[in-house]
Structure formats: structure tokens, C-alpha cells
């Protein structure tokens, strides 16, 4: 199991890293949650290439959760240097928002000026925590979809390969059940 977890780390790092960076860039984030789901799918794609046995949906969910956590960290790290650009982007959005909204809340212009400088560290941490939960759920969804997409080819290959039963008998049993 420990070996399996270690094997999942690199794919999760790649999938989650790409997804987190892309979702953190203001212009690129128009794909919304699709980046994080895509990151989970990508992580499973890489794991599937390396895995000696057919992946189960549980594996997909786990690697997806890991990729979601990596994406959270990447998104947070990217958001720090990009903060000035993001603020400008938000300012543009707010201007457009003003055109569309009937009434703006009092003092919304100054709210932007206060910006990140007055953001309390506890609020930042809370934001990261919420991100981690949401990204993990979306990553898990991506991971499960990824297993469903890539499993078939691996199954064919898995039938040819002899699986070492002694290593992980429970999972092999499950894989057999799924095949039947």
C-alpha cells in the first residue's frame, strides 16, 4: 500500500501542478472547475502508464484527491506573484459589474483598494482550506473519470501480465471481480 501511495505521488504532482497553475492564471481560469477535473484525469493517465496492475476507481479517487491538494498549493503559490495582475483583472470585472448591476453596495470602490493588504492571515488560511476541500472533491471526480476512460486498455494488457497476488491480494480480487 505504501508503495502504491508513493507511485501515486508523481502523477498527482504533475496533474495537480498543471491544473493548479492554469486555474490560478486570471485569463486561463475561464475553464472554471474543468481544470481541476482535468488535472485528476491527467494524474490517472500518468499513473495508469506506470501501474503494473489495472487501476480501480478507488485508486482513481485517491490520486485525484492528491492532485486536488497539489492543485490547491500550486494555485496558492501562483496567486502570490500574480496578485497585481489579478487585482487589475478584478478591477476590470468590477467595472463591468457596475454596468450590469442595478445598485452597488456602499463603498465597493474602496473595498478593492483595501485589497490584499488588509486580508487577515486567518482568512487566507481559511480560503486555502476551503480550496483544498473543493479541489479534492473535483480532483477525485476527475480521477474516477480518468480510471473509467483509461481502464479498458490496461485491462487488456493486465490480462496478459501475471499479477503478483502476494503483494496485494485484496485489490487483485477486486480487479478480478470488476473484470467479471
Amino acid at each position: 500500500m505504501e508503495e502504491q501511495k508513493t507511485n501515486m505521488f508523481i502523477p498527482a504532482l504533475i496533474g495537480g501542478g498543471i491544473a493548479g497553475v492554469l486555474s490560478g492564471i486570471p485569463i486561463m481560469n475561464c475553464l472554471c472547475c474543468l481544470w481541476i477535473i482535468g488535472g485528476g484525469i491527467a494524474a490517472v493517465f500518468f499513473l495508469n502508464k506506470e501501474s503494473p496492475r489495472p487501476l480501480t476507481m478507488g485508486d482513481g479517487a485517491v490520486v485525484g484527491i492528491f492532485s486536488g491538494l497539489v492543485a490547491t498549493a500550486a494555485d496558492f503559490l501562483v496567486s502570490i506573484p500574480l496578485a497585481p495582475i489579478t487585482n487589475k483583472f478584478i478591477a476590470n470585472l468590477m467595472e463591468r459589474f457596475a454596468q450590469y448591476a442595478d445598485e452597488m453596495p456602499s463603498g465597493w470602490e474602496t473595498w478593492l483598494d483595501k485589497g490584499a493588504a488588509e486580508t487577515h492571515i486567518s482568512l487566507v488560511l481559511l480560503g486555502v482550506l476551503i480550496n483544498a476541500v473543493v479541489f479534492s472533491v473535483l480532483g477525485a471526480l476527475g480521477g474516477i473519470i480518468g480510471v473509467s476512460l483509461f481502464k479498458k486498455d490496461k485491462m487488456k494488457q493486465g490480462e496478459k501480465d501475471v499479477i503478483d497476488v502476494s503483494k496485494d491480494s485484496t485489490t487483485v480480487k477486486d480487479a478480478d471481480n470488476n473484470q467479471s
Partner: protein
Amino acid sequence: MVEKKIFRIVFIFTLVGVIGWLALIFIAPFLRSLDIPANSFIYAIFSPICHQNPSRCFYLFGYPLAVCTRCLGIYFGFFLGTLIFPVVNGFKSKRAPKNLIFFIFTVPIVIDTLGNMFHLWQTSDWLRYVIGFIWGTLLPYYFIVGISEFIKEWVIHRKV
């Protein structure tokens, strides 16, 4: 027996979760209309997973919902998909939808998103909503099945 129980529990949690998620989307503009500061917090929850471009949002009480029309469609689709999950799946099938079905449901959202992203065309809000909705209806059939399998494999079997 245990598997079916896990299936049902995951289904209930997913249904409750998506209802809560949708409620937050609608509560945000309501709170903003009342000038209650908590509205910013709710908008902030959704900001990492949605661009929240006001020109691409539906409005309530004079303010945009917490997510864009496409995301709203995905979440409402997810809600409907979850709601009809017991009828379609019957808590029996442990298989995810076939790849062909996934591609049929996914191609519209991919084409539309890329087309809009590269300014090839501009889709109306309602069409974005519908395209998101179509894709969203498929997702619970991965999520509920996959999370049930995850709990079975990684939580229950590891304990035994």
C-alpha cells in the same frame, strides 16, 4: 449488503452536498442585496473554481449569482443526475458510464468552451447553461459509483 449500504450513504451525502452547494450560489446575491458582509465570503468560496464574470452570470436581487451560467448548469445537471440516480442505476451497477457516453456528453462543453475561449464565437448565457447542464447530469454516475468504491477499497477493506 454492506456495499449497497455504502452506495446509499454516498448517494445521500452527495444529494445533500449538491443541494447545499446550490443554495450557497443563490444565497450570495441575496446577502449582497441586504449588504450583509458574509456575501463576500460566499463569492470568495466559488472564486477559485469559477471566473464569476458578471456578464456571464444570471442575476438575482440585482446581483450576479456566485457562479457563471455554465457552472450553474453543471451543478443543476449534477443535482438532477443525482436525483434520478436510484432510478437509472438502482444502486446495482458498480460500473461507470461507457466511454462513448462520456464523449457524447463532453464534446459539446469542450467545443463551446474552447470556441468562447479563443473568441471564435460567443454563446448565449442560456445555451452555456444548457451545455453545462447536459455535462453535469453525467457526473454523478462517476462520482457516486467511484466514491462508493473508494470507501469500500480504501477504508473498509484496509481495516479488515
